Structure formats: structure tokens, C-alpha cells
């Protein structure tokens, strides 16, 4: 049994310590917004926040998290930067298939949490771990800038 703090709620789940958070979220807790893309921290589809920082949940064992606060795409809109990012995404129509976008939005929100006015190289550094097979990068960059400017 492991207890996790997910989106402000404690969840006690029957999972071995080595189970990656990704699968605990998707298959046990039932939060499927966090996506599986590669399983080896190469694509960013599984990005969640742990204490406000972006982490790849496919490589993070549930036993290593302890009491730290986990935030997923389902609740990121309740945070000021998450809401700004989501709105910026919709305003300029970033999404295509959408499968990578949970991870993109989590990475982008973590970037704004840390760097309120990111420049191009900040964006490159924060977002290079998130692959988008549909090729929405140009709009992701623009949406992050728009979100940073919005109040």
C-alpha cells in the first residue's frame, strides 16, 4: 500500500513501490489525462508536477514520492499559471491529435512557475523533452509567450 497526494487528495493504492507513477495514475487511480508515450523519459507525454516541478511520471516509482504534492493535467487548470497556459493553448489552437498536449501543458506551466517571462532559450530548455509528433511546436512557443504576457 502506498499513499500519494494527488491533486490535493490523499489516495491509498495497492501498488508495489517500483510501479511508475504513470501507471498508478492511469490504471489504479483512474486519471487517464497523463499519457504513456515511451516509458523511458524520452517524450514527455507522461509529465506531471511534483511540488510544482515537471517530472516524467513513467520513470518515477511511487515508492519514491512520499508526501510530496502531485498535480496532474486534470487539476492544473486550478492553478493560475495552468489556467493561463490552457487558455493560451486554446486561443491560438495549439492542439492537433492532442495526445502529447497534457505533457506539453504540464511542462509549460512548470516553466512559467519558475520563469514568468521565458525567452526562446528558456522555452527550448524547458520544452525540448516533450515530443509532439503532430508538429505543434511553433504554436507551443507562441502560446507560452502569450500566456506569459497575459494577466
Amino acid at each position, binding site marked *: 500500500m502506498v499513499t500519494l497526494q494527488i491533486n490535493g487528495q490523499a489516495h491509498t493504492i495497492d501498488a508495489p513501490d517500483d510501479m511508475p507513477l504513470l501507471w498508478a495514475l492511469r*490504471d489504479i487511480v483512474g486519471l487517464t489525462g497523463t499519457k*504513456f508515450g*515511451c516509458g523511458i523519459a524520452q517524450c514527455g507525454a507522461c509529465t506531471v508536477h511534483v511540488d510544482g516541478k515537471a517530472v516524467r511520471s513513467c520513470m518515477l516509482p511511487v515508492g519514491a514520492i512520499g508526501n510530496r504534492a502531485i498535480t496532474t493535467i486534470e487539476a492544473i487548470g486550478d492553478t493560475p499559471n495552468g489556467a493561463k497556459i490552457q487558455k493560451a*493553448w486554446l486561443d491560438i489552437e495549439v492542439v492537433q491529435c492532442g495526445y502529447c498536449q497534457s505533457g506539453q501543458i504540464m511542462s509549460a506551466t512548470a516553466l512559467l512557475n519558475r520563469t514568468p517571462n521565458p525567452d526562446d532559450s528558456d522555452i527550448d530548455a524547458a520544452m525540448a523533452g*516533450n515530443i*509532439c*509528433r503532430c508538429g505543434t511546436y511553433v504554436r507551443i512557443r507562441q502560446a507560452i509567450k502569450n500566456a506569459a504576457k497575459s494577466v
Partner: protein
Amino acid sequence: MSMSSKSGTAGLSRRRFLQVGTAAGGGLMLGFQVGGAFAQAPAPKKYVLNPNAFIAIARDGKVTFQIPQEEMGQGVYTSLSQLLADELDVDLANVTPLPAPPSDALYASPRSRRQSTGGSTSIRGFYTALRQVGASGRAMMVQAAAQQWGVSAASLRTESGQVIDDARGGRKLSYGELAPRAAKLPAPQEVTLKADKDLKYIGKSVKRLDAPEKVNGKAQYGIDVRMDGLKVAAIAASPVVGGKVAHVDDSKLKSMPGLQLVQLDDLVAVVGPNFWAAKKGMDALDIKWNGGENAKINTDAIWRDLEKGSQQKGAVAKEEGDVEKSLKGDRFDAAYEMPFLAHAPMEPQNFTVHVKKDGSCELWGGTQVQTATVKAASDALGIAPEKVTFHNFMLGGGFGRRLATDMVTKSVRVAQKVDGPVKVIWTREEDIQQDMYRPAYRNAMSASLTKDGKIDGWTHRIAGGSVIAAITGGKPLKDGIDGDAVEGAVNNPYAIPNQRIEYVQTEPKALNLGWWRGVGPNNAVFAIESMMDDLAKKAGKDPVAFRLAHLGNEPRLKAILQIAAEKSGWSKPLAARMGRGVCAQNAFGSYIATVTEVDVTEMGKINVRRITSIVDAGRTVNPDTIAAQVQGGILFGMTAALYGDITLKDGRVQQRNFNDYRMMRINETPSIEVHVVSSTEDPGGIGEPGCSAGPPSLVNAVFAATGVRIHRLPIDRSLLASRKIA
């Protein structure tokens, strides 16, 4: 009931039969049949509506559109809804798009005659047809109101889901109120489509209907399926095509509780309560495979076959003028090659299947081919298609991968051994190593120039495997030609008096083939545009000017190429080891002209600096979606040109995951300016063609920067290292 459109705007004249019916709760439904007898589709329970309809209007005014095409990011839920909503005259905000159930009889594209989302055909197939359905619905609402009020229909108008009688104080009836009466009317014999100036949604960049749920994690993809009692399986199919399981050592698995081994002749699965448990079980197995003859195949051997193939005479797909004579003089020969590629959509392959004790089967997942998915399951189980129920989900990318149904078949075969529903999920490694690959191609080309630098003779011979043959189980091709493989080559946009296009079917061993975003034009446009650059150099002409001089028969392409040159600053000088490359193409009914600017370091590293692309896709439905598809398509193609290469060693695919099957990332992505020109030509396709614009403009830019011509993709950086400009 027959109908025809008075002012068809896309030259569609085929008569179509409109079906009227009563929706649940007494509303109106409208659909059309594509041909043949009107067939009843099996109606999955989740649809409260009778599925014989594109439009259903309930008494409460709620409008539902059943979208025949699959949403995989290309925005088709939105664009097809725009077509219907505009002509029906309802607010898009009040419309719910739902996936149409599987039925070729009801939902096949008027273009392809099957229910399939591929080949950039959704708008081309449905543009006029869905406008007619919408316009018919509107006409019936007006007719119903005229009856109810006892006035002439001609005196009424519609606005936002209401019929309005201006002559009598502007009284109104809503579509919801009118729906029961309208449902009893015959469909109109003729409808008039809106004039361009009256269009409210068509041609406008309206907001995507699927976007809000894709930014908050609510959108449901196949991999997200959850239900009581659901098990999850990890799968390993033979790493060599045609191989068999030789032995499975499951001694470690036996000590892991709650896991079930499924061992079939050519695949192994481990079923568990969740994916992690199943995957750990899979990792605990020691599986020996017997690869058979294919285990001897390496990619080198396939390339040797392709080279040999390209030296043989092929089946002639097109011949004009006197080719032999035209090539007698000063001839230029070149070969351009493209590798095998995996699709690697972000959502790995998966399907959820419940094979039930009563002999029926339920399926949950995302596919580009709804009816073929049902057939794959019914074939695998030996049951009638009517016994298969399919629940449709969003696709986390298609790109042609989900035009195949191998993932359905494999999942069904595993599910046959499992009690209750099971979700079979492929790891990324499985997804990349068990793909239906884009064929490798070798283009052998020859051309000659006249004294004033015009192309006189041209031969283009394409050697490669045939996807059509693969899909039809190896049937001989009609006249030896794979129409997809020569697409783009037979409609080469340049005016060339003497030309011959040939295809040599050269099947690769040990790899399954499939359609890949951009299909044949990816190869043909790469070859043609590389050759055009080489010929421009030989003629001593500027690459854009050389192309323009050959575009006399293609005014649309000529016009956008001029705009591309202007907007990209084509003639502005660049520093050393920087260059611009151009690509002009006509593919999938749309024209695109693209200029890419690069710099190449002394080490041979390519930095893409800027991309400018001008698009003439004819009449547009949603220009912003077109721009998005071209932006994404260019990156999809460029990713392949920079990195994409599937290779075989001992019959096994060597690439495994995104670490060795690389994707372009945001830090490698330049600004991409896309301009969509306005046009009154027939609408063109747009999901695919951006893809073929990327690689040629990139290699031509590299040529301009370094003087090195790239003959095979992906680009070998060692060819570019420390060379000086010629």
C-alpha cells in the same frame, strides 16, 4: 428521393439519395446513401440516435452531427461540422459532433466509397455532399414552418436554428419545435447552396470543437478505455516477420501472482491487473523465437534489390513524346533514395477487446478504418460482422498507421484467451518494431536540356514495394502499377515534352508495408525537386527561376512559388554555409510552394533557420487548420529527412524507441510561416501534402549551403562535414 444541387460549388454532380427519418424523441434525421441498397447499420447502444443520419435535431433543439471521418488531429470534427452547420443554419456552439458508427453503406466517403480517413480525402469527399445534407435540412425546416403557419416557404428565412416570418411581425419557430413535422416531409428534390458571400462558417477559422477537452486531460483516446473488470496486457510479437515462438521459459512468471501467460504461435502476451504488472511479467519471460528465412535479411540486401530493380525496365505509368530521342544528347542521370520509416504516432498501438461467451465481441479503440476494424475482428473470430460492436475513440495520431488493422487482429487473438475485457497495449518498442513501414524507394532518373536550358527529355523510374499489393494480400497489381507509388510522378507539374514514368515492383523481404503520411508524393516530390535543383545548376539557372520557366501549364503553382520567393527573401544574399532551398509541388489536390533556410556547421550539423510555405488548397473550410496541418506536415517530413531510418539486422528492426528513432524537437524547430491564399478552385486535401514539402526544400537548402547533393535520406551528416563550398 433524389436531389441535385443547383449551385454546386465543387463541381459535384452525382445524384445522391437523401434519407429522412425520425430521431429518438421525434426529431428529424437526415443522411444520404452513397450507392447500392440502403443498408441498416448495427447501432451501438451508446447512440441514442438512429445512426442513418449525419444530422439529428431533437425536440429540444439539440443538434447532433454524426461525423463519418475520424478525428486524429487534422480537425475533421470541426471542418465537417462547419459544412453542415453553415448550410443548416445553426450555431456551431449548439452542435455536438459524435463519431458515426461503422458502416460503408451509410458513411462511406462519396470519393473513396469506403469509410476510411486517409489520403487527405475528407474535405474533398464530403465538401459538397455535407453542404447538400445541411441545405436539405434547412429547406425542410422552412417547409415545415410554412405548413404550420399556412404561408409560402419563399416568404420565410432562417437564422441560428430558427425559421423567421418577417412579413408577419418576425414570428419565429425553432428547429426543435419544427423537427417532428419536418421529419414527415419528403426530402427536397433540389436545394440551393449558400452563395459565398452568405457563408458564416465555411472558409472561416472557427475554433476547433475538440480542443477544450484536449487541454484538460478529458479527451478519451483508445488507450484511456476503463471499465469494470478490465485487464491489461503487454504483448510481444515475433521480432522477425513470419517468425514463430520456439520456446517460452515462464518459470519466473509463475512466481508472480495475478498474471496470465498467453502463448500463440507467433506472439506472446502477459495479462495482468494493470500495464505495469503485465509488462513486468513480460520482462520476466525468456522467449526464444524461430525467425525462419527472414532472420537472414539485412537492410543492405534490400537496398541491393532496389538498385537492381531500378535498373530494370518497369511498368509504364505514363509516356509522352519521343523519350528515347530526347535523351540521346547530353543526358543527366541521378538516383534519389528514401528509407523505410515507422509511423510512431504519440499514442502507441492498443485495442481493447471483450470476446464474449455468447459469441459476440466488443471493441474499443481508435482507428482510421471503422468498418475494416469490425471486419478484422469478425475475421479473426470467424463470426458475422453484426456480432461485433465497435466503440470509437479519439486517435493519438494516425499518419496512416491506423489504416492497418493488425493491432485489432492481435488484440482479438489475445482476448480470445482471456476471460472478460482486456486492453492490449504495445510498448513504444513494440510500436516501432512491429509497424507497417513506409516502403523504401529508389528513383532512377534521367533528363536532358535544350540549348536554352529547358527540360527536353525526362524519365523517372520508381523501384519499391507496393502498399496496395500488401493490403490486398499480394495480388498482382493492375498493369504492374501501384497508383500510390507513382502519384506525384505521373502528375509532375513541370512542362516536359518527352517523358516516361515507370514503376518496378520490388518487394522487400522481412518488412510489412503500410501507407505513411504523404504516401507516394513524399517520394516523387523528393525525387523531382532534387532533380530540378540539379538540372537548374546544370543549366546555370536560379532554382526558382528554372522552376517558374517550366510552370506554364500550372498557373496556380507558378503564382504561389512567386509569393514564396518574395516572402522568404529568396534573392537576399546569405553568409557562407547558409542556403535556401525550394520545393514546389502539386499533391492531393493542393499546391504548396516552400522555401527552407538552413546553415550547416563545419561539423555537418544542420540548423533549420526558417521555413516559408504558401498554400493554395482551393476553397477552404478552415484556413487556420490548413496552416496547422502544413506546419505539422512539414515537420513530420523534415523529421524523416533528418533522422528517419528503419533498418534490419538479422531480420529484426534495429530501432527501438525515441532515443534511436529520433523526432525533431522544439529546440530544432524554426519559425514556420504558412500563408493560405484565397481561391475559388475545388477544395484540395491538406493532411498529407505538407509532409512532402519538408525534405526537398531541406536537401536543396543544404545543397545551396554546401554544394553537396543528398541522394539518400536521412541526410548523412558526414557528407557535409568540413567540406568547403564548391
